[in-house]
């Protein structure tokens, strides 16, 4: 085990996978000399050169499309998007091409491709640079979607993503890059997709939280334990595939569930989880499945307003109390 920051955990896996497999290469904006504006590719150009650590023009549809073409022809590209909000300018290549090609070609094409980058609040980047956009990519069959909440998960899930033969959307969080944690040193350490992590066991309420919301849910759980409410916190880790079995198992025990994500509540993945829990665990539920997510407005610039839009620890505490009728 080594203690490392989330960003370093990502960097180290990129380095190890590039050492292990020469088909793996990285490309994106300002990732070579600069090492990425969040440092996730720092030092890689020095080790692997500018061909395999490739700076791109500000041309997201162009270089994501090039990633599709490279992956179709034997390479394993890992593309860094500076902000995952920028997926919007390359949606055709992601949703119409990467996601669909294998199926549309009758299973006769393979696309090992990772599109990774950060999203979310925390740096005052306002409406086009602070969003949580993961739900878009869960709606179109063909992609897998990961969103690690800890340095170890970032490492383990990224290794799985790079070795997977499908197109993967990998959502990091800008506010987590500086968070430190224990990461296994094993260069094969990986975490399977579709396997949730129970971050805290509890008997009374299940809180399912993603990305930055995991730490907030854990903090809320601590507060609530003082009120005699024993909260179980689950991190799905990948939202496609989604480990619904673990959620159902937990709800059978607790009878109550709250889903918390930073993305907008409206039509977010919380709605899907709530619907699935209602279908699969209806008789075990003692309260409706509740959801917390960003309010239905553009992410505002002001820190005060940003905090008012995205669920905070107190919102989670309040949300749990509500489904416990307290």
């Amino acid at each position, binding site marked *: 085990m080594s203690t490392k920051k989330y960003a370093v955990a990502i960097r180290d896996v990129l380095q190890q996978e590039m050492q292990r497999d020469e088909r793996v290469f990285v490309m994106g904006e300002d990732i070579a000399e600069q090492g990425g504006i969040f440092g996730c590719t720092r030092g890689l150009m020095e080790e692997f050169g500018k061909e395999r650590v490739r700076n791109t023009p500000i041309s997201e549809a162009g270089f994501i*499309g090039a990633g599709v073409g490279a992956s179709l022809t*034997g390479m394993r590209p890992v593309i860094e998007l500076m902000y995952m909000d920028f997926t919007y300018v390359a949606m055709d290549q992601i949703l119409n091409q990467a996601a669909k090609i294998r199926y549309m070609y009758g299973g006769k094409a393979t696309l090992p491709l990772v599109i990774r980058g950060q999203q979310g609040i925390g740096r005052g980047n306002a409406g086009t640079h602070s969003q949580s956009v993961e739900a878009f990519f869960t709606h179109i069959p063909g992609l897998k979607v990961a969103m690690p909440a800890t340095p170890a998960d970032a490492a383990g899930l990224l290794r799985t993503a790079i070795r997977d033969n499908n197109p993967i959307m990998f959502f990091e969080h800008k506010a987590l890059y500086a968070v430190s944690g224990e990461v296994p040193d094993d260069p094969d350490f990986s975490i399977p997709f579709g396997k949730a992590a129970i971050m805290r066991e509890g008997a009374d309420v299940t809180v399912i939280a993603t990305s930055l919301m995991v730490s907030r849910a854990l903090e809320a759980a601590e507060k609530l334990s003082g009120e005699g409410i024993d909260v179980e916190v689950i991190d799905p880790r990948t939202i496609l595939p989604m480990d619904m079995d673990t959620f159902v198992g937990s709800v059978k025990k607790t009878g109550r569930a709250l889903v918390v994500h930073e993305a907008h509540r409206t039509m977010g993945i919380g709605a899907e989880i709530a619907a699935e829990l209602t279908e699969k665990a209806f008789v075990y539920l003692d309260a409706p499945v509740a959801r917390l997510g960003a309010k239905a407005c553009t992410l505002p610039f002001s820190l005060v307003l940003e905090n008012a839009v995205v669920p905070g620890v107190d919102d989670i505490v309040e949300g749990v109390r509500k489904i416990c009728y307290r």
Partner: protein
Amino acid sequence: MDNKRLEWIYKTMLTIRNFEDKALSLFESNQLRGSVHLCTGQEAVAATVCSHLRDEDYITSTHRGHGHCIAKGAEPDLAMAELMGKSTGYCLGRGGSMHIADVTKGNLGANAIVAAGLPIASGAALSAKLRGTDQIAVAFFGDGAANEGAFHEALNLAAVWKLPIIFVCENNQFGISTHVDVSTSVKDIAVRAKAYDIPGEVVDGNDVFDIDKAVKKAVARAKAGKGPSLIECKTYRWYGHWTGDPQVYRSKEDVEIWKQKCPIKRLEEYLREHKILTEKEMEKMHSDASSQIDAAAEFALSSPDPDPATVLENVYFEN
């Protein structure tokens, strides 16, 4: 050009012409459905360009892609089966006319999104460069694609990275009903190459020799590591945008004028004049192509539909 390649181009053009005629008649007799975009009249581009490619070289194609697909080595029976959505088709009936691909033959796919193939072909060229092979990529696209962002992004990317790729524009003058004169800021799309500091050339897209000259140069440039070229082939589609297009946007006279410029007829004149093929040999090649396509249609018609129980297969690669 040596006679062997010329014969191959001729034969390929005949195969494409027959394929398109058959697709049209099957469509008109309700035996084939969906969006079917015919490239009749444009055969010289696909055949001539692909005569310079090996199996390991790559192409991306368009919604009007049957010709590219056949010229890159597709079996007409599997292609026709795909047009009919049959389980024996290239894509097992999942892709249809607009998505025929055969990655094993370097055909990275027809693409129903205008200009989407250009970045993908650039990626294939990047892949060849990273792997250190001498493979090249060709992106076929229409005049309409030249107004998409993906066209400009791909040209810049390929130029700045000196990728082994040729951008081949088939300017058939219409994006559905909209003429290039009202959609496009330049008379010749090839001049847009200047913006990316790469060679751009206009050729007669119905003249095998004119296309050939430009492609030869572009292939040499790509293989020498000097980067991309843009070739604009001026041509014309004989039929509507799709089967069933009322074609209110052009006159029958215009269509007739272009039919007189038939690329197959023009090549036949040359073959005759230079005594490369006799009349009899050409007739035989016509009837061979026709029977090959009849057999392809027969194969497609008699093939089974896909089994609905398999509809969820191949969404993902099962690791």
